[in-house]
């Protein structure tokens, strides 16, 4: 009896100590670390396992390699970067858990990039309260371009409305004019999720404008089994198929297209359906398949890729295999990391060079990005990216893309640069953002807040 009593006491003490240990450092130590931190902290949300790992891994490797490269180049005006990874498995709940765990670490997170539309939706509600910016380069909600409503979101370089708009423009060009799309059939084969449904409003708008018929064919996630979708494609015989997939859905779609005899050169993927993992194991069967390139494509010859091979891989610090450097999704991760870093550099211009920026200060940097061609070229992105400049009203900063085509072994650019039509997208963004603001009771920002 006595023994049990003692044991209980011991257990209680252990629990109390555990609770204290987990609570106390959050107080003084946390504040202290913020005051003396000499390092800028970048949390990295990754998915290296699960259904979407083939696409998540190269992105994560590119992201981390770029942060390593910045450190090898001496940091941001002397401020070294620290970073660590948290595995989300592409699951929203795990993404939010990672966010909660990482936001206060190392003096506080600078910015989050979830690489998941689901996690982005969840964090969009949390970020304003925590005052941490979110960069969603090429994904997330299209209306977050409106910085007057979405103060903390930055869909840099493109949204799905931009993607859909550019694709339709390209098809119009191919046909010899947008008016020639009249009477054509365009099928959207999409991931049945918020991500896949995001382009529908824009495509409906364009279909009304040009008189083409839009067929919507959903594919249940993760999209392993797509027979019924492709039987519908075979029956409808659309003139073009737009593929809005992610992960294994893309390669499965290409295999089904081959199996049902749908010509691959009539297929156009979004920029998340146009990388090596999507076509690699289809090989010859994917020959002729086109996809959007979110500005960059596969860029093994770019200066930044060579720098990484020399300064990161060359020193035995590469994150993934060497051959991956320069691949499409690797470059996507790398450019995403560059945006995160350059926002901080921009913020330092205002709040003090060589200082660690808070998340709030970094947010100002992302809202006032001024990456002109000279700066981009200096960073090693010549021929990879076009200038990006953001503002309070425009959190996207650029709306350009190209088409690249798989030749059976590699991706090659097959179009000129194309810009999304602001006259169509802007009113849609405004309306959608205003609706969101109304639902969530967000007061639009004032001009004074923009200049602050």
């Amino acid at each position, binding site marked *: 009896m006595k023994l049990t009593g003692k044991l209980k006491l011991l257990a209680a003490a252990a629990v109390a100590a555990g609770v204290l240990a987990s609570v106390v450092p959050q107080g003084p130590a946390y504040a202290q670390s913020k005051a003396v931190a000499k390092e800028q902290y970048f949390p990295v949300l990754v998915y290296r396992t699960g259904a979407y790992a083939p696409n998540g891994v190269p992105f994560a490797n590119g992201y981390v390699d770029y942060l390593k490269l910045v450190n090898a180049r001496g940091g941001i005006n002397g401020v070294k970067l620290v970073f660590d990874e948290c595995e989300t498995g592409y699951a929203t709940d795990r993404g939010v858990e990672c966010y909660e765990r990482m936001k206060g670490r190392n003096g506080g997170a600078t910015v989050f990039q979830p690489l998941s539309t689901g996690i982005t939706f969840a964090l969009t509600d949390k970020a304003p309260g925590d005052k941490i910016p979110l960069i969603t380069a090429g994904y997330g909600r299209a209306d977050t371009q409106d910085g007057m409503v979405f103060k903390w979101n930055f869909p840099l370089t493109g949204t799905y409305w931009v993607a859909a708009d550019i694709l339709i423009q390209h098809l119009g060009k191919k046909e010899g004019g947008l008016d020639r799309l009249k009477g054509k059939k365009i099928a959207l084969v999409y991931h049945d999720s918020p991500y896949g449904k995001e382009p529908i409003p824009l495509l409906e708008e364009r279909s009304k404008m040009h008189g083409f018929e839009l067929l919507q064919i959903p594919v249940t996630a993760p999209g392993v089994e797509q027979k019924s979708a492709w*039987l519908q494609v*075979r029956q409808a015989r659309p003139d073009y198929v737009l593929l809005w997939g992610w992960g294994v859905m893309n390669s499965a779609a290409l295999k089904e297209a*081959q199996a049902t005899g749908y010509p691959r050169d009539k297929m156009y993927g979004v920029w998340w359906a146009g990388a090596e993992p999507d076509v*690699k194991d289809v090989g010859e069967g994917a020959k002729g398949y086109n996809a959007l390139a979110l500005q960059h494509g596969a860029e093994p010859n770019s200066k930044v890729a060579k720098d990484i091979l020399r300064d990161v891989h060359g020193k035995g610090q590469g994150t993934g295999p060497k051959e991956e450097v320069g691949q499409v999704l690797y470059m996507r991760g790398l450019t995403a990391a560059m945006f995160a870093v350059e926002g901080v550099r921009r913020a330092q211009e205002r709040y003090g060079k060589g200082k660690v920026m808070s998340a709030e200060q970094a947010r100002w940097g992302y809202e006032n990005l001024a990456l002109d061609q000279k700066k981009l070229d200096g960073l090693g992105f010549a021929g990879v990216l076009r200038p990006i400049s953001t503002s309070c009203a425009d959190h996207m900063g650029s709306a350009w893309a190209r088409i690249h085509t798989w030749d059976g072994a590699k991706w090659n650019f097959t179009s000129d640069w194309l810009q999304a039509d602001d006259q169509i997208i802007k009113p849609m963004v405004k309306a959608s953002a205003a609706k969101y603001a109304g639902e969530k009771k967000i007061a639009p920002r004032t001009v004074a807040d923009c200049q602050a």
Partner: protein
Amino acid sequence: MKKNWPVYTLGALLAAGLIAPLASGAAAPGFWLEVLIGGLMAGVLYSLVALGFALIFKASGVFNFAQGAMVLFAALSLARLSEAMPLWAAFALSALIMVVFAWLVERLVLRALVNQEGVTLLMATLGISYFLDGFGQSLWGSDIYKIDLGISKDPTIILESVFQGGILISKEDLVATVIAAALVAFLAVFFQKTATGRALRAVADDHQAAQSIGIPLNHIWVIVWSVAGVVALVAGMVWGSKLGVQFSLQQVALKALPVVILGGFTSVPGAIAGGLIIGVGEKMAEVFFGPVLVKAFDLAGGGIENWFAYMLALIFLLVRPEGLFGERHIDRV
């Protein structure tokens, strides 16, 4: 005979649903036939996974949630090993890995849980499933890997003179069907004609009685898990060659759940018939019923294929709780 009227009614309704698109003129005969064939072939593939479930449930009363993970693990082994050796050698080695796995499961998990509640065993297999998913990826990697059976992936069009546009047949699916049929035939012979097969059936009928006449239960479990492992390997090989070997293969197992519910947990023919019914049902529903449903009720859109399979299984449960071919239990109370 009278008691069976709900089953007959359901059968009649399903048959009506099947031919409705054709009769109403909503579908051209050629296309309808194509969807039917596509459904049957997808069904065969579901059956392959469902077989693994049924085998283990029949012999040990364990609902093996890890069957999907086993499919993924076996396919990953085969794909990665075949990079270094010929396919047949990789197949043999993968089969060996699955046998070792079965032995480990018996040794480390099942032996300690003899005579425990069914739900405890189910939870244990859930644990195995998570372990195998994670460990498989750590061991073999999480990229998309290739299994090349050397079958042409281009479509074959037949009966072009009869139907406009012809009927599309996928050679891969045809080969899958032949492999599945061969596997079922092999299992039937194994269960009916060999001493081990008889012992397995005895265990399935009554554990205690089987033990009392000297059938070693542990031994039998190793065998049945090994057979399920090899079935998983074949399923993984066929699915993997079609779709690429990747984590999502594991989710194919979720498709096998409605199949075993519908076919009956203990029945090998049930797994086959269930697979075919689910395959045809969901393809027909998605292609012909889905768009009508969305239009009629102005729904937000999206696929119905996934939940339709479960709904079909649930309706079957209403009229035949033990499944189509399941054993009818009469409990004395």
